[in-house]
């Protein structure tokens, strides 16, 4: 198995400046010491609550933001130290699709122009570029009549397909999908998910799929990383994670989304109490402890480390072993 993307001890701290002349600084530990690797050909999922640092990871890989520390490698290239040209070439091998389809495309140019722009930047002749655009549009099921429209004249599903088209028009190996379906209706979401699967098969793409919709992640991903307040708390292959989650937070996530089946209504529940604390001032020890019903004194003081519990199943919790969180899902 070849790792396409490797994050090693990546930290990203945002500085919030305020006060006169930005004298006072506060830090947001958006990503705090995260290591993971994405294997070529797989779909790697990241789930976690809002603000847990998922998008930040997505932005770190193409270096849309610089890391504070740690290293990021993309197919062997050290992204953090890459020169402008290297970085550009590396970026051309990636594609990005964002959550909000309505604002993912430049509202002032036609869909065709948006999709064509990467080709233009890569220096493709105009005619060839136009052909490629038509080709890609077909791939993502966008009719040619749609191409000459402006983004706001499109439905959400069409917009999202257009931004997928733009992301894959340079035939990247790796596509980052930051909640690509969460703004879409269920019926359209299915279209997009199917499209993503098709594309992956045809072009043997590697996906980084970010979402907080557990069923979708489960459906699409091979491996899943669970994040909480900037920390990676658990990492496992999908089947393993669903069968035997190790971290209480993973369990809470899995249980939180009610399954679309009235018969499951009286299933066992596991509900986290309280709200996620502030990122500028995260709790000491295990970051989950104020909300975790299993927390003991140790959780309050000592920060748990991420440990391997066999066959690449990583988790960071002091109480693994004491507890049996295994539920059949």
């Amino acid at each position, binding site marked *: 198995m070849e790792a396409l993307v490797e994050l090693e001890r990546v930290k990203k701290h945002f500085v919030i400046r*305020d*006060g*006169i002349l930005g004298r*006072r600084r506060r830090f947001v530990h958006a990503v705090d010491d995260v290591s993971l690797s994405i294997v070529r050909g797989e779909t790697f999922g990241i789930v976690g609550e809002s603000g847990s640092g998922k998008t930040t990871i997505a932005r770190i890989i193409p270096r849309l933001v610089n890391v504070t520390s740690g290293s990021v490698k993309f197919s062997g290239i050290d992204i953090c130290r890459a020169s402008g040209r290297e970085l550009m070439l590396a970026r051309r091998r990636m594609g990005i699709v964002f959550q909000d389809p309505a604002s993912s495309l430049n509202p002032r140019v036609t869909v065709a122009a948006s999709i064509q722009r990467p080709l233009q930047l890569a220096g493709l002749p105009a005619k060839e570029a136009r052909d490629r655009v038509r080709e890609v549009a077909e791939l993502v099921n966008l009719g040619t009549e749609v191409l000459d429209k402006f983004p706001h004249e499109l439905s959400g599903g069409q917009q999202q397909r257009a931004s997928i088209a733009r992301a894959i028009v340079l035939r990247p190996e790796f596509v980052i999908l930051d909640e690509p379906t969460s703004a879409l209706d269920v019926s359209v979401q299915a279209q997009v998910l199917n499209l993503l699967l098709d594309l992956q098969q045809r072009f043997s793409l590697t996906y980084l799929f970010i979402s907080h919709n557990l069923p979708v992640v489960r459906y699409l991903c091979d491996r899943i990383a669970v994040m909480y307040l900037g920390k990676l708390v658990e990492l496992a292959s999908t089947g393993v994670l669903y069968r035997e989650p190790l971290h209480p937070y993973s369990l809470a996530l899995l249980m939180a989304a009610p399954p679309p089946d009235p018969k499951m209504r009286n299933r066992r529940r596991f509900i986290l109490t309280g709200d996620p604390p502030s990122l500028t001032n995260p709790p000491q020890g295990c970051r989950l402890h104020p909300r975790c019903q299993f927390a003991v004194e140790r959780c309050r003081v000592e920060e748990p480390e991420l440990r391997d519990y066999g066959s690449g199943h990583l988790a960071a919790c002091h109480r693994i072993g004491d507890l049996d969180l295994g539920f059949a899902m």
Partner: protein
Amino acid sequence: MLNYVLKRLAVGVLVIISASIVLFSIMQLMPGDPIRMVADPRLPPHRIEELKRAWGLDKPAYVQYLYWMKNLLRGDMGTSIATGQPVGYLIASRLPYTLLLAGTAMVVRYLIGVPLGLIAALRQGTKLDRLLVMATTMLMMIPGYWFAILLMMVFAIKLRWLPISGFQGPASLVLPLMTMVLPGIGGTLRVTRSEVLDTAREPFVLTAHAKGLSARAVQVYHILRNALIPVTVSFFLNLPWLISGSVIIENVFAWPGMGRLVWGAIQSQDLPVVQGVFVMITALTVVCNIVGDIVAGLLDPRIRVEIEEARE
């Protein structure tokens, strides 16, 4: 909060100093010199040189500026070259009139403009709304001098209800006030109207209705209360503007305000006076801005948090 204000004031002082440097440089670029501006042709060249030396105008510009600054810090704004009177005294004797006129004008403008804006917003789309907007737009666009003369002819000369010019008690205030207020109403009306309309579209208004408040209560406690925040802030942002913007009106109504003072001073290149007034108005702007921010903070807790956080 106090800390925040102090810091804002510090930046304000920086703004004031920079502004005075900008103006000083502009005035330095003027051809000729203040002595020639005011003197007869009877003044022979050697005498002009002597006078320039006496006023320190022969020194390099930066020396003149530093000298001016030094005196300013001592509370001395210098002496007017054209009139031989202390600048501080000149400004002090004009400022009350200007503040009286501009301040009252602002208050009256908002007292009229805000309710009208509210009416227009509540009656959005009706004839009344359109009439109000159109009429105030027209008022906004009337050239100032014209308007002043028109009002004077009607109310002072034909009807003899009001004094023509000068300051002889509250009645004298009416005409200059009208000239200043009427064109401004349009702006206030629009700000209020659009703020009220915007607020009325906010989801929390729906919440207020849903919890059973009467229509009037929603209008007053939820729409007006929130819409008035930006309106109030605009009051403070507009205030200094009004103070500097009334040369024509002061001329027509022989109003002893700062506009005329500074206009005359610019014409005669009376640098100390121009600088003095300029610094005065800039300072007033800075202060008004800060006051506006503080008031906004008092009215809107979301802003207050930023202010308070900035303080730690």
